[in-house]
């Protein structure tokens, strides 16, 4: 697709299968992505939507070949991204993927043109060829008169367009954008959105991670990485558990708030070296698991019955209506 060393991947499909990423955070095992699947045909713009910490950036890092997943596979066309190493990985990062970073990440000492030229210089493209390519991209993004300016002299929107030009310098068939509108006001957002939409043309897959819902109309497909908050009120769900039975696992989407009616529930967190740590033990009358559904997060711990137990699960809305102000973690009597 490019005369600058880019691969001829044609209408490649991006395919993510059973992708799990686990890493250690403060000694605990954190799994921002678990058994994640995605298939994107060429020409589509996919929006990864979700709150901070839901795994958007983790997924982009894995797609870019920067992060090695714990298990699962990523294929882009014929390329098995998850098994790339050495020169093949460098070539993939250099020619197949273009990345637009959240904080622009332009080199402050370089002009806009030089920032765009950098990936070409890295790839061994020199002199006038590199300069012409940089100018072509900057002109196409409406930055012809800003080529010689340093990032500090550009607006946020202009910096982001320079970052887009840099990502496109090898005409990559896979473009990843991490929160491309995070630092832009509504005036600046316009130019960036137009550019991203125009890039999702046949021969290229565009994946945009964001929590900015203004981007929704751009997308051919939206993938929600955070569980939604169920604001509606439903009848409480009563669950009976045997000793040792798991109510929910760490990393699961948070849906209900639970109150212990009978028996005991242990909240445990997986440790990065294996094993678990007991966080808290809950007995009758106490509630747990409210933060995940309240804030749309994944479960940060596993809930397991220590003894035969009965718990009642309520939606956030229903639970709110029953909790007495100042009652701590004890629910009001029903």
């Amino acid at each position, binding site marked *: 697709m490019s005369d600058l060393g880019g691969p001829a991947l044609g209408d490649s499909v991006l395919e993510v299968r059973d992708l799990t990423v686990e890493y250690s955070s403060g000694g605990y095992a954190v799994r921002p992505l678990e058994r994640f699947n995605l298939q994107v045909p060429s020409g589509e713009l996919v929006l990864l939507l979700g709150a901070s910490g839901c795994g958007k950036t983790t997924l982009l890092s894995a797609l870019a070949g920067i992060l090695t997943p714990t298990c699962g596979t990523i294929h882009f066309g014929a390329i098995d991204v998850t098994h790339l190493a050495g020169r093949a990985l460098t070539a993939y990062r250099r020619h197949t993927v273009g990345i637009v970073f*959240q904080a622009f990440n332009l080199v402050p000492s370089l002009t806009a043109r030089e920032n765009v030229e950098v990936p070409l210089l890295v790839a061994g493209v020199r002199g006038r060829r590199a300069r012409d390519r940089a100018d072509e991209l900057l002109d196409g993004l409406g930055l012809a008169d800003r080529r010689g300016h340093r990032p500090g002299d550009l607006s946020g929107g202009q910096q982001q367009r320079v970052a887009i030009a840099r990502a496109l310098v090898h005409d990559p068939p896979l473009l990843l954008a991490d929160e491309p509108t995070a630092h832009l006001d509504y005036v600046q957002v316009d130019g960036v959105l137009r550019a991203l939409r125009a890039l999702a043309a046949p021969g290229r897959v565009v994946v945009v991670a964001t929590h900015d819902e203004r981007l929704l109309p751009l997308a051919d497909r939206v993938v929600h990485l955070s569980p939604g908050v169920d604001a509606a009120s439903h009848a409480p769900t009563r669950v009976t558990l045997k000793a040792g039975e798991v109510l929910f696992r760490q990393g699961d989407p948070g849906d209900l708030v639970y109150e212990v009616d009978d028996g005991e529930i242990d909240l445990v967190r997986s440790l990065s070296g294996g094993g678990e740590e007991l966080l808290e033990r809950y007995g009758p009358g106490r509630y747990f698991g409210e933060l995940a559904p309240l804030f749309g997060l994944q479960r940060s711990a596993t809930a397991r019955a220590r003894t035969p137990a009965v718990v009642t699960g309520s939606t956030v809305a229903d639970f709110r209506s029953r909790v007495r102000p100042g009652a701590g973690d004890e629910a009001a009597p029903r």
Partner: protein
Amino acid sequence: MLLIALRDLQWRRRRFSIAVLATSLVFALTLLLTGAGNGLRNEASRIVASFGADAWFVPEGTSGPFTASSVLAASAADEVSRLDGVERADPFLFMRSTFGASDPIDVNVIGFRVGGLGAPRPEAGRAPRGPGEAVVDVGLGADVGETVEVGGSRFQVVGEADGVSFNFGVATVFLPIEDVQALAFDGQSLATAVIIRGQAGATPEGLTLLTDAEVVADMRRPMTSGLQTIDFINSLLWLIAAGIIGSIVYLSALERARDFAVMKATGASNGPLLAGLALQALVLSGASAAVAVVLARPLEAGFPFSIEIPGSAYVVLPLVAVAVGLIASLAGLRRAVRVDPALAFGGA
């Protein structure tokens, strides 16, 4: 990547300039100390060579004519002159004394036989022709025709000699040997050595024959610890220079971690990134070495003794500076290698 390294230096030019100035001062000091050590080593060989002797007879058990206080009869020179192979022999007397009346300073005093070996070759004026006349070191600031006081006695300056200081840069006064005998031994006809020209076929009893090289080695012996101190301080200065360069490069690596992450994420390998950082270290050390050469000249005047910077030092300095720069940048290079490209995905 070299473009980025050079642009970064331009971008941080104020810090770079301060670092160059600080490092160049350190390099200039290393040049001056090298010159000082060289000067101290040279002064002994220079003064000994100035006598034009082929060998020295000193009292037996004496290590050299400039370091021992043993004396011999000045008439021993006549006995030596009769030895086979000896073309000429003259008595020589060395002592330490003071120069000036109101604010005296230490001087080396050398007594020589008028018209004989050991007579000074002044740059200005002439050599003494008889008692009461002196040739003085130009460093003493006395002009020809002036009357000066040496060891409490007055002498007329008839000549000025250059490059005759020794014993850690102490200036020298040349007097006829009779005047020095009057100053040191109340006029007794004594000497500390007999200077000869020719190859003595025998050694008279009670005397030891020394070559020029042995005399020089004897003069340098008391300087050994001083020269070692100079060498040690020089090593410390190289370390300080390495510290400055290393800190600057490491700081640059720390501050540019995000840039490195972005470049790695976009397919840059470690090699070009490291080459860029190493180039910064090289530019810093090279520029510092160049400024140091310029700075050394005016600083040289502040030293109390002769600074003789060897020509080789100007070649060695940039080479060692480059090596120091590269070694000092290792921590920064290591830091750059360890930058995780995933860092590029972080927020502002």
